[in-house]
């Protein structure tokens, strides 16, 4: 059943509609919300939403619970390849929780929060932006980790990044829902404006496994991988110091040693390498730049350092 959870008239003969589809079967009231499309340039979640929804439709008898799929929290952004909300240049994920009697965007955000609240678990799927490619991972803040980590391990991701809290992140969908008691996992995978089928399949297996563990899926599930957890480990950031085009010679998932050559920044005009990019630490590359043009400061890679005395 498709429902409209928010509808706001736009200037000329159109409404902004936020829609969800509820797939329900059996007596179990356990509810999983699969949410994506907050940033209009992140499309990995679109395919995942399709995969999960179509599979459940075909095997509806194996569902015992409620699956709510919200494919596009920012439909105008997806439609116009705009990361933020078109017209306003606002990052929707800095407007939550919104307010019922606020502006258009605030009203929409408040309606979304109201609708998702009360789910047993919410999975908020992001891609990276167009600049970076990310290994399938779940991110959470230190205070939420004790509650969320057991669920994150069910999701078949390669990596769980537990990061420090930041005040600015208090305006995100995930922070708002977690604060209100709805356990919300933030997935990051792939790259902006593209669909990576293998990652979507990986997360598809994770979602089914999570549903099984929540007692709302009676079908078979694939074995899930044990994610690397960042807890107690540091992340090294590799930023460009020069301007030019970045050409990597390492891939993500690679284990590297500090000082290893991982790419070059080249200047097409002078035909010179203006920077040899080297690993800032030992560890595993879990983020790698996808978009070649770089300025000083452009993020090129993130490397997860090994645990003290442990393996990468």
């Amino acid at each position: 059943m498709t429902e409209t959870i928010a509808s706001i008239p736009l200037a000329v003969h159109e409404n902004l509609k936020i829609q969800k589809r509820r797939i329900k079967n059996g007596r179990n009231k356990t509810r999983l919300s699969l949410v994506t499309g907050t940033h209009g340039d992140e499309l990995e979640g679109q395919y995942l939403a399709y995969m999960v929804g179509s599979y459940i439709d075909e095997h509806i008898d194996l569902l015992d619970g409620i699956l709510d799929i919200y494919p596009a929290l920012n439909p105008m952004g997806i439609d116009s390849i705009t990361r933020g909300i078109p017209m306003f240049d606002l990052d929707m994920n800095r407007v939550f929780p919104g307010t019922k009697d606020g502006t258009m965007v605030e009203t929409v955000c408040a309606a979304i929060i109201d609708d998702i609240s009360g789910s047993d678990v919410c999975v908020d799927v992001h891609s990276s932006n167009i600049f970076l490619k990310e290994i399938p991972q779940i991110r959470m803040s230190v205070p939420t980790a004790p509650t969320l980590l057991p669920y994150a391990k069910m999701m078949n991701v390669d990596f769980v990044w537990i990061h420090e809290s930041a005040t600015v992140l208090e305006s995100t969908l995930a922070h708002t829902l977690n604060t209100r008691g709805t356990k919300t996992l933030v997935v990051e995978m792939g790259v902006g404006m593209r669909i990576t089928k293998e990652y979507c399949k990986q997360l598809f297996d994770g979602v089914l496994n999570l549903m099984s563990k929540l007692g709302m899926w009676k079908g078979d599930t694939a074995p899930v991988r044990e994610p690397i957890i960042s807890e107690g480990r540091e992340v090294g950031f590799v930023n460009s110091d020069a301007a030019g085009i970045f050409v990597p010679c390492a891939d993500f998932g690679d284990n590297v040693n500090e000082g290893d050559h991982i790419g070059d920044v080249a200047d097409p005009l002078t035909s010179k390498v203006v920077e040899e990019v080297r690993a800032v630490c030992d560890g595993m590359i879990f983020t790698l730049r996808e978009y070649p043009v770089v300025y000083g400061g452009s993020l090129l890679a993130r490397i997860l350092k090994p645990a003290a005395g442990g393996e990468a």
Partner: protein
Amino acid sequence: MKKKILFSLRSPYREQLDVVGFRFGHGRKALAVVGAMRGNEVQQMYVCSQMVQELKKLEARDRIAEDCEILVVPCVNYYSMNIGKRFWAMDNTDINRMFPGYDQGETTQRIADGVFSSLQGYEYGIQLASFYQPGIFLPHVKMMDTGFTDPAIMKDFGLEFGIIRKPRPYDTTTLNYNWQIWETKAFSVYANATDEIDERAAEEAVNAILRFMDNRGIVKAKTPPGYITAILNESETGQVRSDHAGIFFSRTEIGKRVGRGDVLGIITDPFDGELVSEIRSPVSGTVYFAYHSPLINAKTVCFKIIK
């Protein structure tokens, strides 16, 4: 006056970005004024250019107080201005959401860090601010309530209103907020327009900043008499939102006193021209913001009223 490059960034395909500052006077860091940080803030850059003009005259007449240095930074992000973008051209990030910056971080974090290192240590900081929606403001001054800056200082601008804003989480990475954390008394001056130049409002903003500097003993400047500033919390202002969508016509002006129930604007159907909404003021007060665009969505802030 000394013109100095405060921060530079190399580009792969364009001339180097040089953030330029104009220094006047000598000695303790008294005041820094910052203009455009976004590519559409043309009015904000223009106000700073007029500040440079006025300060040059004051310096020539020896009207800058001893042991006082003033810095004016007209434009941080002219890269975006030159190509018609609002945020950083490469990745669409907002420099005014990157403070205090980080010199080893991403590009706009590095720009924010480079600029902020030049802006630290001043007793007062003024940013020429803009609003994210198309609209015009009655010139006014605003400050974020971090507990550091005394709101009464806003009276020295002599603008009609001084508004205190309670910071939200997303405000914590702005220049204004971080200035205060680093112990600069920081204010935002709104000079009516953003992506077009309103000379009259710009002159009013320049006079307000000169009046502030005169009242604070930084310069000796003659300015037209100002207002006795009313200081109020942002929560005391009323927002009027559109209840319909369509073509918008304002029926009032900023600065005008309106009564409860007065028609402030109308919305007509974009196809058949029928009147679909009359926007009436829910309170009596002064209009200090008016939406300024022919098309309007529902639930858009179209007027702000100071009760």
